[in-house]
C-alpha cells in the first residue's frame, strides 16, 4: 500500500504543476544565495589568511559554492520538467529520466544536509588554526623591515581595533614577546641593556602593549606602558582597571565572529534543504500522477499520486534484493533469483 497516496484530477494536477514551477524558481534563488554565501565566507577567510595557520582548509566554502551551483542546475532542470508536465506530449520525453533524476535529487539533498552539518562543526578546527596563526602573527609584529612580513604589524593593529581585542588569550601575551623592532632600540642605553640581559633569548620584553589595544571608551588617556607598575601612573591600579584596554583575547573574538557567521550559514543551508526536499516530493507527485492516468488517452482523467509505491519497509527490502541480484548478476542461478525478483517487485 502506497505511502501518502493522493487522488488527482486535471485541475489539481495543473495547480500542483504551477505551484511546483514557482517553488523551483524560489529554489533557484536559494541556490544562488547558497553560492553567494559560500563566496562571502571564502572572502572572509581570505581576508584574515595572514592570521591563520598555513594549512587552513577552504573545504567548507568550496563545498558551499559547488553545492550552490549544483542546486541552480538541478532546480532549473526540474523547473523545465515541471513546465512540460502540463503538456502530455512534451512530458513523454522526460518519462524515462524521471526516476534517475529523482534519485539524483535525493542524493543532492543528503549532500546539502551534510554541508549544513559541516558548517556547524567547522568551528573546532578553526579554533586551532587561529590559535597557531595569531601566535605567529604576534611574533612577527616587530618585523616591519622583513619582506613578506612587513604588513603583519598593520594587519594585527587593524584587527585588534576592529574586533576590540588584545593579544591571543588576553593582553598579557604581549608581555612575553618583543614587539618593538631592534631598529628603534638604543642598545647603548642602560634600560635596554637591562631588559635584554634579563631573559635567556636576549629579547626586549616589557610590560606594555601596542596602541591598538587601547579602548576609546576609557575615561582616561590610554595607559600602554608600565602597565603592571601601579606607582608609575597617578590613581591607577592595574587589578581594578577595566576600561583601559580591551580585555578580550583576539582568538575568542575571531572564533566567535566566524562561529556566528557559520551558524547563520548553516541555518540558511538547512532551510534550503527543507525547500529542496519539498520540491523533490512535489516532483514525485507530478511524476506518479501523470503515470497513473485511468485513461491514458484522455488528459482530463483522474489519477493517483504517491511518494513511494510500497511502504518504506517493502521498498527497502526491494532495494536490498535488487542490489543482491546485481551482485550475483552474471551467475547462471538467475533462474531462481529472477523469479524471486519478479514476484517481489
Amino acid at each position: 500500500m502506497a505511502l501518502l497516496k493522493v487522488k488527482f484530477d486535471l485541475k489539481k494536477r495543473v495547480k500542483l504543476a504551477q505551484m511546483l514551477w514557482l517553488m523551483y524558481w524560489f529554489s533557484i534563488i536559494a541556490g544562488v544565495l547558497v553560492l553567494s554565501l559560500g563566496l562571502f565566507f571564502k572572502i572572509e577567510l581570505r581576508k584574515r589568511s595572514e592570521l591563520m595557520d598555513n594549512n587552513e582548509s577552504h573545504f567548507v566554502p568550496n563545498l558551499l559554492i559547488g553545492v550552490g551551483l549544483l542546486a541552480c542546475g538541478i532546480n532549473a532542470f526540474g523547473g523545465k520538467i515541471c513546465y512540460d508536465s502540463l503538456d502530455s506530449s512534451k512530458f513523454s520525453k522526460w518519462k524515462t529520466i524521471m526516476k534517475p533524476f529523482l534519485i539524483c535529487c535525493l542524493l543532492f539533498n543528503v549532500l546539502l544536509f551534510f554541508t549544513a552539518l559541516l558548517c556547524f562543526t567547522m568551528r573546532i578546527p578553526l579554533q586551532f588554526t587561529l590559535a597557531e596563526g595569531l601566535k605567529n602573527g604576534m611574533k612577527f609584529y616587530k618585523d616591519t623591515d622583513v619582506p613578506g612580513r612587513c604588513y603583519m604589524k598593520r594587519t594585527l593593529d587593524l584587527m585588534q581595533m576592529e574586533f576590540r581585542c588584545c593579544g591571543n588569550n588576553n593582553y598579557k601575551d604581549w608581555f612575553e614577546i618583543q614587539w618593538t623592532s631592534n631598529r628603534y632600540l638604543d642598545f647603548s642605553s642602560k634600560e635596554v641593556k637591562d631588559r635584554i640581559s634579563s631573559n635567556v633569548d636576549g629579547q626586549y620584553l616589557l610590560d606594555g602593549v601596542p596602541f591598538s589595544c587601547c579602548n576609546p571608551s576609557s575615561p582616561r588617556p590610554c595607559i600602554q606602558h608600565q602597565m603592571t607598575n601601579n606607582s608609575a601612573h597617578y590613581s591607577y591600579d592595574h587589578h581594578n582597571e577595566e576600561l583601559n584596554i580591551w580585555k578580550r583575547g583576539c582568538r575568542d573574538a575571531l572564533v566567535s565572529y566566524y562561529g556566528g557567521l557559520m551558524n547563520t550559514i548553516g541555518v540558511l543551508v538547512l532551510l534550503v534543504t527543507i525547500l529542496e526536499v519539498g520540491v523533490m516530493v512535489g516532483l514525485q507527485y507530478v511524476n506518479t500522477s501523470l503515470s497513473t492516468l485511468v485513461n491514458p488517452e484522455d488528459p482530463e482523467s483522474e489519477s493517483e499520486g504517491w511518494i513511494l509505491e510500497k511502504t518504506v519497509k517493502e521498498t527497502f527490502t526491494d532495494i536490498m534484493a535488487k542490489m543482491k541480484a546485481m551482485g550475483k548478476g552474471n551467475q547462471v542461478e538467475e533462474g531462481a533469483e529472477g523469479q524471486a525478483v519478479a514476484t517481489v517487485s
Partner: protein
Amino acid sequence: MTLLKIKFSFQRRVRLAQGLWLLSWVAMVSGAITVATGVFLKTELVRRAEVMHSNDIHIVPNLLMLVGLASVGINIFAGKVCQDSLDATRFPRWKNVLIPYFCISLFFTFLLLVSVILSYALQPSLEESLKLGLKNGIRFYKDTDTPGRCFQKETIDHLQIEFHCCGNTNYKDWFEVQWINNRYLDFTSKEVKDRVRSNVDGRYLLDGVPFSCCNPASPRPCIQYQLLDNAAHYNYEHQSEELNLYNRGCRQALVNYYMSLMNTIGSAVLSVFLIQMTVLVSLRYLQTSMQAVEGQENMEIETEGYILEKGVKETFKEFQEKVKNFYKQVQGDVSPADEEAAGDAAPAEEKEATPTS
C-alpha cells in the same frame, strides 16, 4: 507663433503615449531613488552631528526627500493621464487640471536643480560648522565626568580612527588644549606643577596626542608623547616623521568625505532632473496634440503639438495681464475697476479662450 511646434499623426500620438507611460514608470523609480539618497545623506549627517555646530547643511537632504516624494506623485499622475489619453472620451476630464499641474511640476523640478546648487554652495558653511564643532569636541575631550559631555572622548577617538585623521587642522591642535582630565593628574608632582604654571589659564598642556591619532601603518610602535623632543626617542626626528601619526586634519577629512558623497548624489540628481523634464515636455506635447482631436468626428486625424501657443514673451505678457486683473478684482475698486473691466472684457475673453488649452 507657437513654440516648438511638432506635427503628430495618430500613430505618433499613440507611440508618444506609450513611450511616456513607460518613461513615467522609470521617472517614478528615479524619484524613489532620490528619496533614498536624501535619507542616506541625512543619516550620514546625523551620525556626525556631535562634531557639527550648525545644521544649515541639512537643508540639502531635506529638499531631496521632499522633491523625491513630489516627483513620485507627479509621475504617477503623468502615467494616469497618459493611460487616459489613448481614449478620447476619458481625456477631456483632465483638461482643467493640467495647467496647474504643469506649474507645480515645473516648480518641484526646479527645486531639484536648487538642491544640487545648494550642495555645492553650502560647502563653506559645512566647513565652518565642522571647524567649530571639532574645536569644541577637542576642548571637551577631557570632560569624561561631565554629564552631557562624557561621550565626547569616545566620539572623537572613533572619528579619528575611522577617518584616519588627527586634530582639527593637524595634530598640533592637541598641543593647545588640556586633553587629560584633572582626576588623573598628580598635582603634587613637580612636572605637573611646572606645566600648569607655564601658561596663563593654568592648563596642563603637553606636546602629546591621544592614541587614536596613531597610524597603524607606521613601522615602529606609536610615539604619542614628547613629540617635539627628538632626544626623547631613539632614531626619531619629528620634522621628517611621516607615518607615525595621521597627517590629515579631521576637518579636511570630513569635508572631503561629505563632498565626495554630494558629488555622487549631485550627478544622480541631475540625471533625475533630465528624466523628469523629458516626462513633462512629452506630457505637454501629448496634451496639446490631444486637444485638437477633441470634439472631432475622426480620432485619427493629424494634429499639432506645441509647448507654448504663443511665443515666450507674449505668453509672459498675457500672464502678467491676468495677474494684474485678478489683483484689481480682489482690491475691489469700484469705478476704475468697472471701466477697466468693460475695456478689458473683450481682450480678456480672448485671453480666457487661449490659456485654457
